[in-house]
């Protein structure tokens, strides 16, 4: 049985890496007594699959994880309790907010997610400068960057990956002398994920992130490709506990 969960990552624990989060979940699942299925073979591994990696230091309201549970050992476990049960075993700042069972044929998180919505705070910069940089990139037809990939120069156009970019307004940030500005961006993850730092670095003038929060991950609706939805709303999913 495959369970897809949504979890959050806030506060101090945001400085753990993607690999750390995998380790944290492996142990939390064991402590919670949830019977995770193991791979066969010489070196058995728990069958859990993460979606897009969150950069170390970024917070998130919307991380996802697929867990395969061993159907033979699942008896007696009240699936409706799963979010609370797992949250109880996670470090402060991480919580499981929802869980659904999904069909094994459901596309993996890596394949299914097509874009993410980000809340990006930049500080020590005036609002007009930020607004100018945002307006310029939205007006541009392309946003060409050259980057090094495996020792070779690669030219990339980031503009198609910027699905939306808005200035939400000023913020007050501690330790910031000149105040700050909050941006909301929706960035594509297919064919490759556009990173927040990449976008900010390509703006004119370049901006430097202060705090970044992933607000949503989006999947395309299988029947209507203009309709986006949460990875928990995949066509074949059922809320856990429902029979």
């Amino acid at each position, binding site marked *: 049985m495959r369970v897809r969960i949504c979890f959050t990552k806030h506060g101090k624990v945001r400085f*753990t890496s993607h690999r750390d989060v995998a380790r944290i979940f492996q142990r939390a699942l064991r402590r919670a007594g949830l019977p995770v299925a193991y791979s066969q073979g010489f070196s058995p591994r728990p069958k859990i699959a993460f979606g897009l990696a969150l950069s*170390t230091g970024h917070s998130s309201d919307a991380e996802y994880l697929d867990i395969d549970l061993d159907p033979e050992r699942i008896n007696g476990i009240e699936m409706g309790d799963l979010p609370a049960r797992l949250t109880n075993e996670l470090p402060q*700042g991480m919580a499981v907010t929802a869980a659904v069972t999904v069909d094994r044929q459901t596309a993996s998180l890596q394949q299914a997610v097509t874009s993410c919505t980000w809340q990006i705070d930049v500080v020590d910069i005036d609002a007009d400068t930020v607004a100018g940089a945002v307006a310029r990139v939205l007006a541009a037809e392309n946003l060409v960057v050259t980057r090094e990939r495996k020792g070779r120069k690669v030219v990339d156009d980031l503009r198609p990956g910027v699905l939306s970019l808005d200035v939400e307004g000023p913020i007050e940030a501690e330790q910031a002398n000149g105040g700050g500005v909050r941006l909301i961006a929706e960035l594509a993850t297919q064919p490759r994920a556009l990173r927040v730092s990449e976008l900010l670095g390509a703006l004119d003038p370049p901006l430097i992130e202060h705090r970044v929060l992933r607000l949503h991950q989006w999947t395309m609706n299988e029947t209507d490709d203009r309709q986006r939805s949460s990875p928990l709303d995949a066509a074949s999913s059922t809320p856990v506990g429902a029979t």
Partner: protein
Amino acid sequence: MSASLWPRLENLLPQVQKPARYIGCEQGAQTPTHGAGIVSWLLTYPDTYEIGLPNQGLQILYEILNERDDAAAERAYSPWTDLEALLRRERLPLFSVDTHRPAGDFDVIAFNLSAELTYTNLLNCIDLAGVPIHSDSRSDDDPLIGVGGHCTYNPEPIAEFVDFVVLGDGEEVVGEITELLRDWKRTGRPGGSRSPLLREMSKIAGVYVPSMYQVAYSGGFIAEVTPRYGDVPATVEKRTVADLGDWPYPKKQLVPLTEVVHDRLSVEVFRGCTRGCRFCQAGMITRPVRERPAEQVRAMISEGLTRTGYDEVALTSLSTADFSGIEQVIGETVSDAGCDQVSVALPSLRVDAFTVGIAAQIQRARRTGLTFAPEAGSWRMRQVINKLIREEDLYGAVESAYSQGWRRMKLYFMTGLPTETDEDTLGIAELARNCVALGRSHHSSPSVTVSVGGFVPKPFTPFQWFGQNTVVELSRKIGLLRDDLRRTRGVQLKWHDPKATLAEGITSRGDRRLGPVIEYVWRRGGTFQEWSEHFNYDLWLEAMAVNGCDVDWYVHRHRREDEVLSWDHLSAGLHKDFLWQDWRDSLNELGLEDCRWTPCYDCGACTGYGIEHVVASASPPAGGSQGTGVDLTGGGAVPVVLAQRPRGSEALNGADTRRGARVAS
């Protein structure tokens, strides 16, 4: 009470490598309350979080102190160089990872010293805490700087930087120190009370306060070390917990969120070792053997696995297969765990086929590699060091391992041992070649990694009088092995840098005159000297020369019987004449049996403190010959005493109750 530094730190962490090292938040981490009636301890490991977090000593004291109403304990580790630079630029101090409180706000900053090359990091942490590095420059408001751990059996090189030193097991003494400090805090820490406080502290058994002692020199040698006051003890004895069963700690082992070394549950099954390996400081200073009751071991394993979510447990001790009923404990652990994929690690194993059998029982999956430590290449050499492993034991172990599915062996050796000849050194290559040959009958490409480290003589061992080999000599011996093994397929040779071995040798048996040397290295940026990318050999030599300290005198010189050693005013319970006799026996290639199962030879560790071995089994465990030349594979037999000390050596024999045994090969 100052506020948490977190709001300022979190703006720096995006700029450093592996920021999760600095956030705390581990399962089992505590956020204790601080206050007027509470003595606050910052337990600090002076190396990175990855190395320091798993340290069991700090975790044990962390729990014991936090269980007290009058104490609060948090933890700190050395920040890596990138964060250190940012902290200094932003004028931020060393901080605790639990509540991110400034180190200077604690009453005590207590360091675990497990390796001499961390001494410059000790200075760096004290300085980063905003505390003067010299004990005599500190004011009444500064935290007390304490140290514990194996290095503190010769704390003289760092004497001027620390306020107090704890010798031996810390479980009981931290409470006694807390009570003294609690009463002192109640008096409002009046001006000028720091020195009288330290004088009181020096009366607690196991606590050494270097500033209460003066050292007199004569002709470059130490003439005597004497207490400054009549009520300060002339000799400081180590502390020993009589029964490990009274201290089932850690009860809530910390589960880190990020990668660390030894990332698994650890259960200490016994403390102390009387195998009597003469190079081994740990075996000498932690005597007598105190086994944890098997029932408690089982409970700690099963509760620990359930609570932590770990899928691996290490049974820790020296020579773990010596634990009474080891097979039963392991069998039960593996079967209790059922299908939950728990593996058991035994980091310290004797070399024989029996222990491989144990390993096979616990590593059902993942048979990647096995490690053995014969330590020396010839039987003669192994009698000198009293690591009584016969070649048959090693080959039996290796044959058994290959036949049960392991493909890679790692063999640990030392070079630069007393009386070592080139023949002994080349014996290492010979053993490795023979092990690969044994593997060929089981696999097409067996592999043996030979790891060679230079020997550093340590205080409170029979080799404390031995002059360490020079860098040139150690390099030559490693060169011999490289040449000899160059065309041997299947053997990889790895070695420890002889220059780092020298630096360790300087501090291992140094005296108070080395304080300025350590300070010199630290002031010129010589931190993280345990890390090969940061180790700076030339800086150590320069520091020695500038401060008028002769490397040859401190490191390479053989010491004489009548010399006052810089640690002679401290005691690990061992009689100095026992150690001297064992040193002479060593030179005569005489083995000494394990006293757990044979009569006492009065080393002093039990008799001096009125304690004794706590060992459940009256006979030694099964396995190999254990150096006796007698087949002990069936177990249960008491090894016979093989030969008396040869005639002519009686003159060397200080204690007639002891018997040497020449062991037939």
